[in-house]
């Protein structure tokens, strides 16, 4: 009687192109043990036949598709597994496969056909929309979400025919505000300027990486079909053979894609032998053509796009080499922030953004196909422990269910009363992510609002740190300007006045903004202190009248913020009020701040909260005879600068990370 748990496959030979292969990872799929072949390509594999699934031996070599053999008792003598080196050349003739969707997965040619749960997660993620995202296209083409000629022209835009994203058609769009296509084209006098695109800005290399044909340097308008509809999809990520962090981001460089070349006429496999890179050593299914790569468990894969340091893209513009010696600007540094932070040692991006999925026991959804109970095979894969399969939800700040923003920051408030003043110290603390807060696209920023109240009555801010222009302003005027004239003013708007003493905040930011390279002045955050504010009661011919005397100061912000905000409300201009803001502030060649990344020629400041970091600011409020004052603060996240979002007519809801109130 054979002990089913005591079977050993002795002397299994693994060859690569007919020669014994050393260091090949051999295992019984469905079980944890792994074994390596010796210099003669030989390995001994303990096997367990007391399992409810097919017993196989698989062999995994980095230059070959994973191979395997089904084994039975008694184990045949001279068992061997022959692997073949895959063609090392990328194949431009290969068409990326359709990931399918939860509503379109009838064909085995669609990933969703078997990988149901993963596909559902991915389909709901921002990765799936990366190439079709309207905001991305507005920034690429220079369009705005304005859909009538009259409204476009009133807003100062140009109503013109241009390409309709994802199609071969032309259609009317409102060209207004920044756009990669015309901003990077010195010949362009008026957008769209898309025939041909002078410089696509590298957008598609990450946003539409699945454009068939040549990799890199493609225009976003070239995305059609799957490349447009599915964005960053299965067959793109799982074609990443290697990651070279020294190259520029995207499929043109950092992400080395490898599309298969070997033709096949086998039914169901397509024109070329499948080739898929993934995290596992035990997937011998020829339908997948799997090759194991460790980067699927590492942050480096994510760094393929979530790290972007480059020279200014605007033609003819150089950075200030004294400030940026390499000539490159740190536009997105999420990977670097993580690597240099406390989680950079052992908590990769996948830990938070691709959490384990206890619902599935194999990425091919064994349980849905009712093959797990008593089974597990070449076709269906073998069971993995719960958690071994990662969700492909790519949760982030816009994934409401994951509450990533709410988990990322904390607020501490200390308050004291001195004479007729309340003095509040507000500390915003980064407590969660491995990277900065916010991170990624530099348009993202945080706004800290600090307030005091007496029952339902708001107490007046009288001093302390003010929200800088990052908080948004409908208009800004200096001390030499007429603060009663505001062409943009409406009843209910406010004019907030700040002092700007001639010195700069000494904060700890990212890179040269935090490592001692830059002086406080070079770190670029000019001190601004609250003086006071007035509300506009009436506007006649652009001249405003107020609910009180205009305070004196160095700068006036016209805003529509009311001092507090509820979660999900459209972001309002909030500069000049009691609070602060956290952002990487981009600057263009004309000195404009908070510009789209492709226009940036400098980073003026970067005070984003880094892992473990905190920022404490002080704020003053009038006590106004209040006997039971309360102090409060709210830290919010915005995707876009208020001014740009309003120009482009983008929805820009403000998300509350944390808010707190306490009695004094």
């Amino acid at each position, binding site marked *: 009687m054979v002990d089913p748990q005591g079977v050993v496959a002795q002397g299994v030979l693994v060859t690569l192109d007919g020669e014994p292969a050393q260091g090949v990872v051999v295992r019984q799929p469905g079980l944890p043990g792994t074994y390596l072949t010796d210099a003669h390509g030989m390995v001994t594999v303990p096997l367990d036949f007391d399992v409810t699934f097919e017993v196989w031996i698989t062999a995994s070599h980095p230059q070959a598709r994973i191979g395997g053999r089904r084994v039975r008792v008694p184990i045949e003598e001279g068992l061997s597994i022959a692997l073949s080196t895959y063609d090392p050349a990328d194949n431009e003739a290969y068409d990326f496969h359709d990931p399918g969707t939860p509503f379109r997965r009838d064909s085995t040619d669609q990933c969703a056909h078997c990988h149901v749960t993963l596909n559902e997660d991915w389909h709901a993620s921002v990765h799936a929309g990366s190439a079709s995202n309207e905001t991305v296209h507005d920034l690429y083409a220079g369009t705005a979400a304005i859909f009538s000629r009259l409204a476009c022209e009133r807003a100062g835009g140009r109503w013109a025919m241009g390409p309709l994203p994802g199609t071969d058609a032309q259609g009317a769009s409102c060209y207004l505000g920044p756009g990669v296509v015309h901003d990077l084209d010195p010949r362009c006098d008026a957008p769209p300027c898309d025939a041909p695109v002078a410089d696509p800005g590298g957008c598609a290399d990450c946003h539409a990486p699945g454009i068939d044909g040549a990799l890199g340097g493609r225009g976003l308008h070239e995305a059609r079909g799957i490349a447009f509809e599915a964005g960053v999809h299965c067959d793109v990520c799982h074609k990443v053979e290697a990651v070279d962090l020294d190259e520029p981001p995207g499929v043109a460089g950092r992400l080395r894609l490898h599309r298969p070349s070997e033709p096949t006429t086998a039914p169901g496999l397509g024109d070329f032998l499948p080739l898929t890179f993934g995290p596992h050593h035990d997937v011998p299914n020829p339908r997948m053509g799997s090759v194991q790569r460790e980067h699927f468990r590492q942050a480096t894969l994510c760094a393929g796009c979530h790290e972007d340091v480059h020279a200014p893209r605007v033609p003819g513009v150089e950075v200030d080499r004294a400030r940026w010696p390499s000539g490159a600007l740190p536009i997105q540094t999420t990977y670097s922030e993580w690597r240099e932070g406390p989680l950079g040692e052992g908590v990769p991006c996948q830990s938070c953004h691709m*959490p384990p999925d206890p619902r599935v026991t194999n990425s091919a959804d064994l349980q849905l196909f009712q093959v797990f109970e008593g089974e597990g095979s070449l076709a269906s894969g073998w069971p993995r422990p719960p*958690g071994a399969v990662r969700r492909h939800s790519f949760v982030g700040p816009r994934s409401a269910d994951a509450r990533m923003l709410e988990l990322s920051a904390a607020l501490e408030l200390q308050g004291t009363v001195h004479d007729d003043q309340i003095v509040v110290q507000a500390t915003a603390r980064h407590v969660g992510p491995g990277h900065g807060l916010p991170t990624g696209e530099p348009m993202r920023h945080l706004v800290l609002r600090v307030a005091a109240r007496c029952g339902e009555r708001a107490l007046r801010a009288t001093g302390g740190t003010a929200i800088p222009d990052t908080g948004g302003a409908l208009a800004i005027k200096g001390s030499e300007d007429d603060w009663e004239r505001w062409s943009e003013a409406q009843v209910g708007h406010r004019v907030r006045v700040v002092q700007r003493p001639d010195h700069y905040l000494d904060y700890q930011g990212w890179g040269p903004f935090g490592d001692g390279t830059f002086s406080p002045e070079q770190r670029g955050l000019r001190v601004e202190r609250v003086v006071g504010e007035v509300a506009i009661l009436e506007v006649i011919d652009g001249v405003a009248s107020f609910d009180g005397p205009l305070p004196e100061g160095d700068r006036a912000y016209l805003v529509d913020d009311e001092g507090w905000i509820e979660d999900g409300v459209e972001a309002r201009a909030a500069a000049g009020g009691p609070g602060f803001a956290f952002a990487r502030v981009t600057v263009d060649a004309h000195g404009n701040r908070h510009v789209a990344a492709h226009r940036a020629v400098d980073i003026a400041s970067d005070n984003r909260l880094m892992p473990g970091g905190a920022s404490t600011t002080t704020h003053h409020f009038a006590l106004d005879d209040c006997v039971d004052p309360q102090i409060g603060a709210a830290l919010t996240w915005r995707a876009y600068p208020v001014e740009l979002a309003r120009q482009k007519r983008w929805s820009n809801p403000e998300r509350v990370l944390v808010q707190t109130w306490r009695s004094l």
Partner: protein
Amino acid sequence: MRSALMLGCLLACGPDAGEGESASSTDRIVSSDAEPRPRLRSPAEAPDLAPDDPERVQVELTAAPHSFEVAGQAVEGWAYNAQVPGPTLRLTRGQILEVTLHNALTDPTTIHWHGLHVPFEMDGATWMHDPVQPGQSFTYSFIVDQVGTFWYHPHFDTARQVDLGLYGAIVVDDPDEPEVDLDVVAILDAWAEIDDRDDHHGLDGTSPLLTVNGARDPILEAPPGSVARIRWINAANLAYAGIRSEGMTVIAGDQGLLAAPRHGEVLLTPGERAETEHLLGEAVEILGDPWSLYGGRTPGPVQRLLTVEPSEVREAPQSPAWAFSGLPPTPDPLSTDLVYVLQGDPMTQDWRINGERFPDITPFHLDLDAEAILEVRNLSGSEHPFHLHGHAFEVLSRDGVAPPYREIVDTVNVRLFESLRLRLVADNPGSWMVHCHILPHADQGMMTILGVGDGPHEPHDHRGR
């Protein structure tokens, strides 16, 4: 014979069929094929060496290597007084518990009194105190002014020592509580062989086996028509146990009677306790739902943990008059004093709190008797039972939702991406451990210190855990 054992992830990690959010009668239920099924016994109580002293319970515990059986398999482990689970320590509220630990192991060890508000120097944690060396003894002594089910285990090389069998129950009786016919301690543990060839991304355990007092799928014999009170303790290193049974009422948790009873099921994460009441007209099966610490209920077989079997079928008795307080949750002041963010990843087994790995940590401090609001946020790839030494705390809310009744615990599960708000009255001075009670997570760094009262709260050297 196994050379070593590890508490595996059992129900937490056992992959199997099934889908949906809750188990049903169609779930595959696994049970032991051993015949006859083992009988469940409460772990033997430690003899009181001072029986004539009404104010004191005096016990001696010797930690030593021990050969024993788990579910029919021989184990070379460690034990207190040569029994696994160790002797149950039973006393009445207000008594002094005096335990002399003799270390007959080859390693240092301690005893931690999980859930009891002991003086810091009696806590068994080695952040600032030395462990008991091999061949040496130490006497722990403290007044117990709590009621309920607690447990004791080492707090030195904790995952390994608990794994090997060093743990036992503490039952603190309240003379005012109604008596029941059957009062049983049921300590859950999970066992799986160490497999150092494992490359399943840091996950382990593929052959689940959850035992009750070392027995798999036992029968608890009961008098006919009786009321049974089962005191559950999850002593597993990793395994979560979703316990349910027809007609089961959860009457008590970590810190004695609940504010209100709960019916049907209870999730018991490592370190947690629960007391369940069973009104036995006929036999009842107590089942364990498969639960993954990577995000909740998971596909897998439902395990029969225990059958409670009266000697004959009768009409079910009435429930005794438990003195549930019915108290609502304390209103949340909506301010926060301390934030603990749980971070880490099962692929790398790198576990931290606030970006720090024990012992390279920055202790938080609270003034003695301060009332503090703690936020515990989970940004890691695993659920974590959050445990604080020396104190209990109230759960004010989970993701902003307050519990229906006041909930006082010393260990609380934090689900993926969940944020808990806890109210703590810091009334016990010391440098208290704060950690995940998945013991490998704690050993790998998910542990920190909360200093209460005047320090120092940091040792001269970071001597260990």
